[in-house]
């Protein structure tokens, strides 16, 4: 499925997404029980809630999502949309750095431009992409580098996301390597740079004016990267990168450029702000450091693209907004994923992480997809319980129960917990 998606598995995948679209489970569950509105919370402690404490807003092509910022636009996906392996396009989170976001794009004049150190620099129309290249599909999780940043202690600046800066989709498009082959990468190329149509009010030579990211030409992920024109079988919503966006399986979303229009073969390492200064992580085994080491200038950093997303899992149900009943089964459900490959095990604890049981895994849609899990638990006695969930991937990575800390607020993957109340049924 990764590189050579045959027709049958493509149809199977599209069928699964099609079925999801028919039943629209995500749409039926926009809100959990709302007895009282969540009280405002900004810190300085860690955000204790699953999502950020943020207001619902509506945007073109979107269901009500949670607003972090409105110019540039950053919107978080509410928890309930993660009950399914594929996140609905209209609920998919949005994250821009710059505020000039296209409202209208003319496909008659839009071109994908391959520039720089190519044998045959070229411009391709949208039609060219649809007709001249073999379409491929891959299910892959797009997760913001700063997902769950509001958990950090001490808190760090940046988008104060809860857990909803992520989503999984079936992406269909053109292989990057097919494009590179067509244009002919010349010897001496070290990186491939990408830029989209979003622009900012700042100077062109600074990060406030343009957003660009680069992948090393020798990074194995180049083989799996695609330029997607379909998201869950439909054109991308404008806020998710219409007409095409980069899909870099296993990597954080900062590399998944939206509205991709320029692909440049670079003969020198990209030194633009978004590579050289921003989105860098400590060069430590789990990307963790301390405020003291940062202040002392002892931290060597690397671009976050040097690592794949750490393994994570989430409890979606029960969400703590309604009680369970002693003696009755409760379905503990959620999703898990890893940038390192297939999730092979999800464990659930109903005693805060002291003992663990094995959850049943949902369908496998490929190594970079969300995978659902389910664990049926019948609480025997009333009281307050703490649920926890822990995933393991095929490389043997297991979620830690310790927090990560770095000044960017990246790489959070601590074991998630959910407190629930069980009523007596006497």
């Amino acid at each position: 499925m990764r590189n050579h998606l045959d027709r049958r598995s493509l149809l199977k995948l599209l069928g699964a997404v099609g079925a999801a679209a028919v039943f629209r489970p995500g749409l039926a569950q926009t809100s959990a029980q709302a007895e009282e509105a969540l009280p405002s919370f900004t810190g300085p402690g860690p955000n204790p809630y699953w999502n950020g404490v943020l207001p619902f807003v509506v945007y073109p092509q979107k269901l009500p999502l949670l607003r972090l910022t409105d110019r540039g636009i950053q919107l978080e996906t509410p928890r309930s949309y993660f009950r399914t392996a594929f996140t609905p396009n209209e609920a998919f989170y949005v994250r821009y750095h710059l505020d000039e976001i296209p409202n209208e794009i003319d496909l008659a004049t839009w071109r994908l431009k391959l520039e720089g150190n190519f044998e045959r620099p070229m411009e391709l129309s949208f039609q060219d992409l649809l007709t001249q290249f073999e379409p491929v599909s891959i299910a892959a999780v797009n997760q913001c580098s700063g997902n769950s940043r509001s958990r950090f202690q001490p808190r760090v600046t940046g988008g104060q996301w809860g857990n909803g800066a992520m989503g999984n989709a079936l992406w269909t498009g053109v292989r990057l390597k097919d494009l590179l082959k067509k244009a002919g990468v010349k010897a001496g190329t070290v990186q491939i740079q990408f830029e989209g149509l979003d622009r900012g009010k700042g100077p062109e030579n600074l990060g406030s004016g343009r957003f660009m990211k680069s992948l090393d030409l020798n990074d194995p992920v180049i083989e799996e990267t695609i330029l997607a024109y379909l998201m869950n079988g439909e054109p991308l919503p404008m806020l998710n990168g219409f007409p095409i966006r980069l899909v870099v399986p296993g990597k954080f979303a900062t590399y998944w450029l939206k509205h991709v229009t320029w692909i440049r073969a670079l003969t020198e390492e990209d030194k633009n702000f978004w590579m050289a200064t921003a989105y860098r992580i400590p060069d430590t085994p789990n990307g963790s450091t301390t405020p003291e080491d940062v202040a002392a200038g002892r931290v060597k950093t690397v671009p976050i693209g040097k690592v794949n997303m750490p393994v994570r899992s989430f409890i979606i149900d029960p969400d703590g907004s309604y009680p369970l009943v002693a003696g009755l089964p409760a379905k503990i459900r959620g999703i898990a994923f890893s940038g390192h490959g297939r999730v092979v095990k999800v464990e659930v604890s109903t005693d805060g992480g002291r003992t663990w049981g094995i959850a049943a895994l949902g369908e496998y849609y490929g190594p970079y997809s969300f995978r659902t899990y389910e664990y049926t638990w019948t609480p025997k006695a009333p009281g307050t319980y703490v649920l926890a969930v822990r995933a393991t991937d095929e490389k043997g990575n297991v979620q830690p129960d310790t927090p990560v800390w770095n000044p960017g607020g990246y790489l959070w993957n601590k074991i998630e917990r959910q407190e629930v109340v069980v009523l007596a049924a006497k």
Partner: protein
Amino acid sequence: MKRFSYALVLLALIGLVAAQGLPGVVSSGSYTVGGLGMILQPKPAALSGGTVYRVGAWPLYTAELADGPGKELVMGYCSVCHSVTYITMQPPLKDWAPTVNKMIKTYGAQIPEDAVKQILAYLQAYYSVQTRKQ
């Protein structure tokens, strides 16, 4: 609005009275005022055909900043590149200076030195660990 609230209370009372005697019911018929009109349905787009993919203007949902000296400067300078929602979104910060300096040195914000001082004083006065109201 007041009359509506009375009506709600009355409705709740009737509900409570009616619910008495039903086994297990502690309360029922309890209503509260919802945020009517806070989220509107989109009008279907007027599709013109052709080759232009078009969506509507991006709606602004900009946070209201705390009133105080320096607020206008913040609104004026910070809003050039981004809405001031970026300020209210941040956790309470011990020191806003690194953030303001980043805007100037890294992102090229052009703010006169005197205004920088007032902006910093405003942010410390309303959005720091010591001063931020939830």
